[in-house]
């Protein structure tokens, strides 16, 4: 059974149709890149999979491990193993990062019927992961993402990914706003989480990110559907020729 199956998905925001019958199959262990110009519907796809309110699915389905994902609340999707790394992680003043991480992790474990993490185990794990991502301890004491740089916010997303151990990670424009050094640190963090049990969907506008996170499959989106799929070489092809050739194909 595929980990994620998106079948002929049609989605509206207010009166406008953004996705016009998108299909995508992701198996565990695979890394898929979704590329496409601005406005092609890449972020909409990530939001619909994560359960963000405001999107109306008019047709099609999304199955996760064979279950109908669209019927689940966002928190249920998270506890079942769906993780969205946000393009713009929000700042939450007054909620310490550590408190947030523990609350979220324990909420997911509770929903799965697992015991809550003990404090020492939790702290040990967070410190380990934080160290590997170059996240200083004082950042964990601050409010979630409050005063974090663009790179720090993205690393905080990857920290959560490492802690929650999701089976499906969707990385929405992870490279936006990052300089080359910050990008490398973030990409190393993501690569460390690649595993035969986990799939990743990397959404990006630029080929650059895919030099660091090398995908197994590349899909080109245009005007709300996948117009071409191929191996990692497709990304290089796009880098050379641009998206214009696909505008007509859509």
């Amino acid at each position: 059974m595929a980990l994620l199956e998106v079948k002929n998905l049609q989605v509206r925001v207010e009166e406008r149709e953004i996705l016009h019958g998108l299909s995508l199959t992701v198996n565990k262990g695979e890394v898929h890149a979704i590329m496409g110009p601005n406005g092609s519907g890449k972020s909409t796809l990530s939001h619909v999979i994560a359960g963000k309110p405001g999107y109306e699915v008019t047709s099609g389905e999304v199955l996760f491990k064979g279950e109908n994902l669209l019927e689940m609340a966002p928190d249920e999707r998270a506890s079942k193993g769906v993780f969205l790394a946000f393009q713009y992680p929000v700042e939450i003043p007054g909620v310490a990062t550590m408190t947030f991480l523990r609350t979220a992790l324990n909420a997911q474990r509770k929903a799965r019927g697992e015991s809550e993490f003990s404090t020492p185990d939790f702290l040990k794990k967070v410190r380990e992961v934080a160290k590997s991502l170059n996240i200083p301890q004082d950042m964990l004491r601050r409010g979630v993402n409050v005063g974090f740089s663009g790179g720090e916010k993205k690393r905080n997303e990857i920290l959560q990914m490492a802690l929650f151990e999701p089976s499906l990670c969707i990385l929405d424009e992870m490279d936006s706003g990052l300089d080359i050094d910050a990008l490398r640190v973030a990409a190393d963090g993501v690569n460390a989480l690649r595993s035969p049990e986990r799939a990743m969907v990397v959404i990006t506008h630029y080929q650059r990110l895919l030099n660091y996170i090398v995908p197994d499959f590349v899909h080109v989106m245009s005007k709300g559907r996948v117009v071409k799929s191929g191996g990692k070489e497709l990304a290089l092809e796009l880098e050379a020729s641009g998206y214009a050739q696909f505008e007509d194909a859509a």
Partner: protein
Amino acid sequence: MNVVLAKTETGRALSDIFTVARNRLPGAGKVADHRQQAFETYERLGLPHRRIEDWKYTDLRVLMREVLPLAAAPDAAALKRAGTALKLHAIPGIRRVVLVDGVFAPKLSETSDLGKDISIRSLRDVLQTGDAALQAQMFAPENSDAMVALNSAMMTDGLVIDVADGAVIPLPLHIVHIASGAAPAAMFTRSLIRVGKHASATLVESYIGAEGAQAYQVHDSLIVSIGDGARLDHVRLIEDSREAFNISSAVVTLGAHAHFNTFGMNTGSLVSRYQAVIAVAGEGSRVETNGVNLLNGRQHADTTLLLDHAVPNCSSREIFRAVVDDRAHSVFQGRIIVRPKAQKTDAKMMTRALLLSDEAEADNKPELEIFADDVTCGHGATTGALDDSLLFYLRARGLSEKEAQALLIQAFVGEAIEQIASDALRELAISAAQRWLAARG
């Protein structure tokens, strides 16, 4: 404002209560005269209503539909119920002084080993046998407010606390007001705390109902005097029954280089009003007055503060947060007066309300009256809902809708709670907030 209104049924019933109860009220001679005068003032003013500016948002003629008779002194059964309630609200590391149905309950209180730095007497004793000056001080709050006048006329008991000059009282003092639930009743209490020069003390007041206590009325007042160089930390927690009324007033006076840190949290009662007048009368003094309302159902809670800066070189900070759900109504009125002599005053006030439902209401009324020209004063007020993008982020990380709201609500009220100086008291406020959040489901 002189608005003459026909006395309502409620107003009349309260007057009858005084007539019936007067022989049971402690104190004769001058004390009885003070009561009579206060009662006459109350009779003239009647219950406060919306056409009195200070009571604009809390019209007692509408909200206080029935007046309950003066509570009987607690019997053995009442004290037993109170004792059970106390166990549920036990706080470690604190000295408890208990008022049951408005009457001092020595057996439930921890007043045997006070030492020489602190003295605690009951108001009843003071009014019956105390010296005239102290008795007069108990009647010091101005009766121009009808509910203060009513409280002056009817006060039955309370605590008179003296902290000696230079004393540092390590254990916080905790006045617990308990309604025993014997029968629906009204209690009228007044307490006084005098913190001597260069002394420091901590006072916690909480208001609770024993099991079965429903529609009772608390009428309380507090007189605070903080000496030169002294410090008082003060926390009020209203966790009364959800059908109770709590009408409380405070009059606070600070000497020079004194420090008053006060925090109020209101999660209980159906209708509550806390009106405090804080007079900064000595130079170089500091006031922090902060509060949180957590309201739902049809609760109505009104905090009305007057900060009076009369002398130079003082500072005050007010941070107030209201979280209002369902059809509840939160009121914050904060007035700061800076008198002509009070140069170099640094006074700031910020009030924010979070509305969790379309029918919730929050009224914020900040007022500055500044008569000095070299001051730093400011105020701000905001009202809004929880941010959807923050809620989605938290839900995408596995928190249910209620859990996500709870985390954001705690962060919102946290800014006010953080101002509590002592870790233990901060924990008290946090756990009161958590109880409210847990009760939401």
